[in-house]
């Protein structure tokens, strides 16, 4: 099959194979992307992936937007864990502008990012369960994503596309209700996660469906530049939080789970274990916050951080800064920075080139879903149709991140 022009229909009446269009709208693709598969019975002979159905040209749009207006674009990359994208972008710009944020901001960011990681992994692991047919386990854990969204709501007012934080910190401090909700979540979530694991981890049918399916060797994974839980499931202990610590992750005590065979079961277990580690990270962060001066939620960078409205109306300096920030009269250094965070699916990188203006000269998002997905069609060859579908679920391909 020509990889540039997939054949969408059966042209050859003599052919023993069947062409099946899996997607763009199929209940298992969880987003808009297409796979044109050649099937021999239930077995996939070859496949071609078609992407780009929801390409929105974010990298180009970003070239026309001031830095602080690019945050809402990052929301829409991996919309299952928007806060990680937001924080990654803030940290990239802070790296460009040489801003050091207070420790308390780092810890607050870690809380938000780890909550986002949990919600991302909840989606992926429950969807694996759902695609193998275990709907109940899906619903048991999925309600906790709802609780996480309520926490976001308390912190920033939004649920899915959060736009949490600003360059230099947060737009406002976490209120008491937010902390109360986080504590409630930390109390209730482990119980549900344990129940979820007890329903699936030792379930004979689930193990048969996932173990030994879609095995990937570390070499293959590295060849395709995989990252995140998928790479760790193959046995490579690469985690951006450890190898290139950002946001004070080096002060925290956590483990990076790795798998052995890179199959779907290992990916599932790695994600589950990461949820446990995230819970512990949030607990540690909450503990550390107690030792920091209360009420600090942004760095003292008046050039870049919008002043509060009452300041703007009553104070001349604040008014000037407000004007300069909004009108884009801030000098940003001419520089080239790359900053990566450990997203839900892997290394989420922001490659930013600035020529001194108020907007990036060029911005590239290193989207893990896009890079991980490049192996999908090749992996599917020789698989059964059912395997290919849970393989897709276990790779947690988010259409927004895939197409950007």
């Amino acid at each position: 099959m020509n990889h540039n022009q997939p054949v969408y229909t059966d042209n050859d009446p003599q052919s023993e194979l069947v062409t099946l269009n899996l997607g763009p709208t199929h209940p298992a693709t969880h987003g808009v992307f297409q796979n044109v598969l050649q099937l021999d019975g239930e077995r996939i002979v070859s496949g071609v992936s078609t992407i780009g159905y929801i390409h929105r040209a974010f990298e180009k749009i970003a070239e026309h937007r001031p830095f602080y207006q690019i945050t809402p674009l990052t929301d829409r990359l991996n919309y299952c864990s928007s806060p990680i994208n937001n924080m990654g972008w803030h940290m990239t710009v802070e790296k460009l502008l040489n801003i050091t944020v207070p420790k308390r901001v780092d810890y607050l960011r870690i809380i938000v990012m780890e909550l986002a990681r949990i919600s991302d992994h909840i989606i992926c692991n429950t969807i694996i369960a759902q695609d193998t047919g275990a709907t109940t386990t899906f619903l048991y854990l999925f309600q906790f994503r709802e609780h996480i969204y309520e926490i976001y709501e308390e912190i920033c007012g939004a649920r899915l596309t959060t736009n949490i934080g600003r360059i230099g910190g947060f737009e406002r401090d976490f209120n008491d209700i937010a902390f109360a909700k986080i504590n409630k979540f930390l109390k209730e979530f482990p119980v549900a996660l344990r129940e979820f694991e007890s329903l699936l981890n030792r379930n004979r049918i689930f193990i048969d469906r996932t173990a030994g399916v879609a095995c990937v060797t570390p070499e293959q994974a590295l060849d395709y530049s995989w990252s995140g839980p998928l790479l760790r499931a193959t046995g490579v202990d690469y985690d951006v939080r450890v190898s290139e610590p950002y946001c004070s992750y080096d002060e925290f005590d956590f483990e990076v789970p790795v798998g052995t065979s890179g199959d779907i079961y290992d990916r599932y277990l790695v994600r589950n274990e990461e949820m446990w580690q995230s819970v512990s990270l949030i607990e540690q962060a909450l503990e550390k916050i107690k030792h920091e001066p209360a009420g600090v939620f942004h760095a003292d960078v008046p050039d870049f951080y919008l002043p509060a409205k009452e300041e703007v109306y009553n104070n001349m300096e604040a008014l000037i800064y407000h004007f300069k920030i909004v009108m884009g009269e801030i000098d940003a250094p001419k520089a080239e920075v790359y900053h990566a965070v450990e997203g839900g699916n892997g290394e989420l990188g922001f490659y930013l080139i600035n020529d001194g203006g108020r907007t990036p000269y060029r911005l590239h998002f290193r989207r893990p879903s896009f890079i991980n997905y490049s192996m999908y069609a090749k992996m599917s060859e020789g698989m059964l149709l059912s395997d290919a579908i849970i393989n897709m679920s276990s790779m947690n391909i988010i259409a927004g991140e895939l197409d950007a």
Partner: protein
Amino acid sequence: MDISFVIEKFVLVAIIFGISLVIAMYSTYAERKVAAFLQDRLGPDRAGPFGILQPLADGLKMFMKEEIIPTHANKWLFMVGPGLAMLTACIGTAVIPWGSPITTAAGRIIPLQVTDINVGVLYIFGVVSLSVYGVMIGGWASNNKYSLLSAIRAASQNISYEVAMGLSIIALLLVTNTMSLKEIVEMQHGWHWNVLYQPLGFLLFIICAFAETNRAPFDLPECETELIGGYHTEYSSMKLGFYLFAEYINMFVSSAVMATLYFGGYNYPGMDWVLTQVGPVIAPLIGTAVLFAKIFAFIFFFMWVRWTIPRFRYDQLMHLGWKVLIPIAIANVIVTGIVIAIVEKF
């Protein structure tokens, strides 16, 4: 043949047909309520108190929906498919004994069974085997690749599991020495339920019943995450309703067969004492109620399993059917035969 016999049978058929339809309707409601219960949700609660009018609303919706027949579908077969599925699902109830015969004051004996044919077990097998045609024809006639894949899965699944099911029944027949369902039930009078003599056979039978009714974990023909809707992807309005209905009626019939063959049918402990207390008209009806209680317990079990465990993959399903269930079933037949031979000898 006297006319009262015809009327009696006609009324019985009408009642059984009506009951199976009502139970199928309310199985959809029960399914949603059971699922909600298992998943910490409320389930349907808008239509009527506790949502008990929900099935009626669903039925009305099915009738009012626009009916779409795909352009490239084989129109005639497309219509035959759901009809055949519904027909085969409904006729299975004909040989089930619903209660011991009612003796009226006039001395007239009214059997609560449409017909007691001496090959009742084989009849049920025949009907169950036919049920795959509805799925196959519908899946093929839709001219949709997903439906076709589903039809292929359904055909191979049903054929494979019928073998194991048949073998598990052979062991049962060795014990009962009869194929008449009525006699099988009568033999289990009191506490002599066949499940006590054939526990392994029952286990095999219930697994195969799950496969025959296309229920989870064997719901491969309609697994929505792979094949969208499976064989009924292209169906709409009441044709879709027929397929969904047929599934629930099949579940009801399988439950009734399991209750009859292995769990004593309408028998319950102490039924002789009850007969002396309430008389020969009421006592059989209590037996019928007991049978329905057993059926509902099985239906609940079907739902419980569906909402708990994941589904198999196609090749694992075949592996389980041919390499696990059939050898066990054959061993069960042999062991049962040897034990019976020894018991009869001494």
